């Protein structure tokens, strides 16, 4: 596992030197900023506004995550550098975890505008910080899961665009499950809701940290990363 920080650093360097990263960062900050500013009015509920600021990334992540993860493996596979990487004294697990952590840290940078908005709301008046802290925990877990999905798509695809499209389609599908299951109480609806990442995130924004939601994110992220490792191993056999 000693190679993980090296790979993470390499990935972060690649991110911050590529124009796509700045395009994603700018687009995220602009869209989040516009949607947040529309919510700020002459009279506002600070608690609700902080919850809103934290709920916005649910939708924006579906657009940003494919752009962030599409190149992680697809680019290496297409350019052939994957062979070099795989023959280096690093394990597939280290490669996957290193790239995953790089993407996760980059996402944390992407969320800086949200922190600025929270600070702005704090300056307007006192309110309960607990739900914001739990909201950030939830956001971290949600992002990790969405990035893990993107990582798997990238590991299975040779083309960046294909990887991004598949990733986007999967995320839209998962979000659609949430919409389908919302308000319904039948078993199938509960199952659909359970499978949808945003549904688990909302309780975090209300200040509730539920072990069911924690388990869902941790287990699903772990499973997706494991599958990414297996997908890389499968490629090695060929």
């Amino acid at each position, binding site marked *: 596992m000693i190679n993980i920080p090296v790979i993470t650093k390499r990935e972060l360097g690649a991110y911050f030197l590529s124009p796509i990263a700045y395009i994603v960062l700018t687009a995220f900050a602009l869209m989040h900023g516009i949607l947040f500013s529309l919510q700020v009015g002459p009279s506002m509920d600070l608690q609700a506004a902080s919850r809103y600021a934290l709920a916005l990334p649910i939708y924006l992540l579906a657009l940003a995550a494919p752009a962030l993860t599409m190149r992680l493996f697809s680019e290496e596979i297409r350019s052939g550098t994957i062979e070099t990487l795989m023959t280096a004294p690093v394990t597939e697990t280290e490669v996957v975890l290193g790239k995953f952590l790089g993407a996760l840290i980059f996402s944390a940078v992407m969320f800086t505008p949200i922190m600025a908005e929270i600070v702005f709301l704090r300056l307007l008046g006192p309110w*309960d910080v607990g739900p914001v802290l739990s909201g950030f925990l939830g956001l971290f877990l949600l992002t990790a899961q969405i990035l893990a999905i993107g990582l798997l798509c990238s590991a299975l695809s040779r083309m960046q665009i294909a990887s991004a499209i598949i990733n986007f389609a999967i995320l839209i599908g998962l979000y659609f499950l949430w919409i389908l299951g919302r308000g319904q109480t039948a078993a199938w609806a509960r199952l659909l809701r359970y499978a949808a990442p945003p549904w688990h995130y909302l309780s975090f924004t209300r200040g509730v*940290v539920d*072990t069911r939601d924690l388990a869902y994110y941790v287990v699903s992220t772990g499973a997706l990363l494991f599958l990414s490792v297996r997908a890389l191993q499968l490629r090695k056999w060929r």
Partner: protein
Amino acid sequence: MRTDPTPRWKTLTRAGIALGLLLACAGFVLRDISARAFVERDIVSTGLWLGGALLIGLGVILNFRALLGALRSTRTAEQINFAVVLVLALAIAGLLCYISTRRFWRMDWTGAGQHRLHSQTVNILKNLDRDVLAATIYSSGQPGDFYIKGRIADLLEELKSRTPHIETMYLDLDSPGTQQRLRKLLQERLHIDNVPCPSVVFATEARHETVLFENLVESSRGPQGSLNVFKGESAFAGALVKLTEEKRATLYALTGHGEKSFEPAPPASRPGQARGIAGDPARSMSRALKALKNAYYEVKPLDLAAVGKVPDDCDALVLAGPHAPLSEGEMKAIRAYLDERKGAALFLLDSRITPHVKTNMAELLSAYGIEPHEEAVGVSLQLVLDAVGVRQSPQPMVLVDPQQMANHPATKDLEAQHILLQDPCPLRVRPETAPENLRPLALLKGRTESWGESDLDAARKNKATYEPDKDMEGPVVVGAVVEPRPSLSQSPGAETPSGPRIVALGGSESFLNYSVESVPGNLYLLLNCVNWAAGKVQMLGIPPKTMEINVVSVSGGALRASRYIFMGGIPGLIVVLGVVVWLIRRR
């Protein structure tokens, strides 16, 4: 050598395997949906399984050789390996997630404990020994209902996290197909024809309790102004207690001496006796009655002079501010109830600042170590606004000091409540006059600057001043309890010894509708005291929660700043950074 192309029908049979799998899965899903929707679809499900199995079987038989060949290739082996790993990983992940849904707990990170259950609710849930269905019936078309439904769902999730005995169901009447499910629920589970909407129905196999949405939210005035409180937890805990308790506790409210009425209508009184103050809804205790009914009490009037004794089914006797003396027979009956039958009584004691008050409560209570001084009144300095400006004025009311509250079950979790007792009769606690087996205790006191004023005229005119030789020294005691004294050999935490339980609170005015509407803490105090006296310790102190609304006014400057920073400043900064990096790399 050229091989013959695969016939089209044979290719289709391969697709048949996939179709068969799909049909079999559809059979399972349909059966589950049918079960939840209380609809019989077993024939269709079985048909789908059989059809699916037939298609799979036929496909496998017809393509046996091709399947065998495919299975032998390396590529297929790799794919099967990955597929097996995928299935196993998903199965393990699913299993872990399933386990996490069966055994889970929730952590509340809000500062005010918005999503935290009270210890009494947790106790009720721990002792819940039967399955309870909590069906929330609402209409999503009503915005108010939808908002409260969110709070209810959150609370029910919290209850579910503490016990496996609660199952939830949500019926949105605006959703298609709900009417059928509701009919099925009413017929098969609740055995009734109709249920009010919006409401939450808690049902066991034998009984059900309905909590209306309108009883869950209350607007009240507190120290910080008007705010909405959510009373879901106490209402749901009450409903669960009702479902599990065998019988309602019975309170008897003494009548015939000008006591406050629990009912809005005037109580019957015998000729020549003082009438109850009733008729005006604001001056009745009907809100207290409603709260007591919600806590599974039955309140019955008691004409002790006519009956001669306190009824056998009495769990607690309430004397809600008598204004006339009790007859010797009535006194004897109450003493017999308390001493011989180890009964419980709640005394709401008025001062003579209220005209025509002259009782013999002192005679009755002093035997238990509590001395009410109705010839005086509790006075404290209150901030008032008049023509002169804001000043301190001595008012005949006492704001209970939370720091001075006795550590007693009757005051459990009331520290955060605003309790203001009006025209309270000052009390003195004298342990030396109480029987050895009883322990009198000062329960509630005013702040240090409060006192017991003996000049009632001055108190009426808000001109009272403390005179050490005439008045009762502060902080004035406005609430006291008498309870059985635990023996020295009794281990800590052991069951409370049997004996009379008495609560005396100053000022029956404090519990009238108009009073508890503006000071809800008074009502929670009353409920706590009744619960303690009646021995319903599991119902003690479940205060409501304020709705988390923190509205502020945002200045024009702040509005503009937010737009400049978040729509221009931050995105612009990132663009600049990107350009700088691009320029550096270009060099």
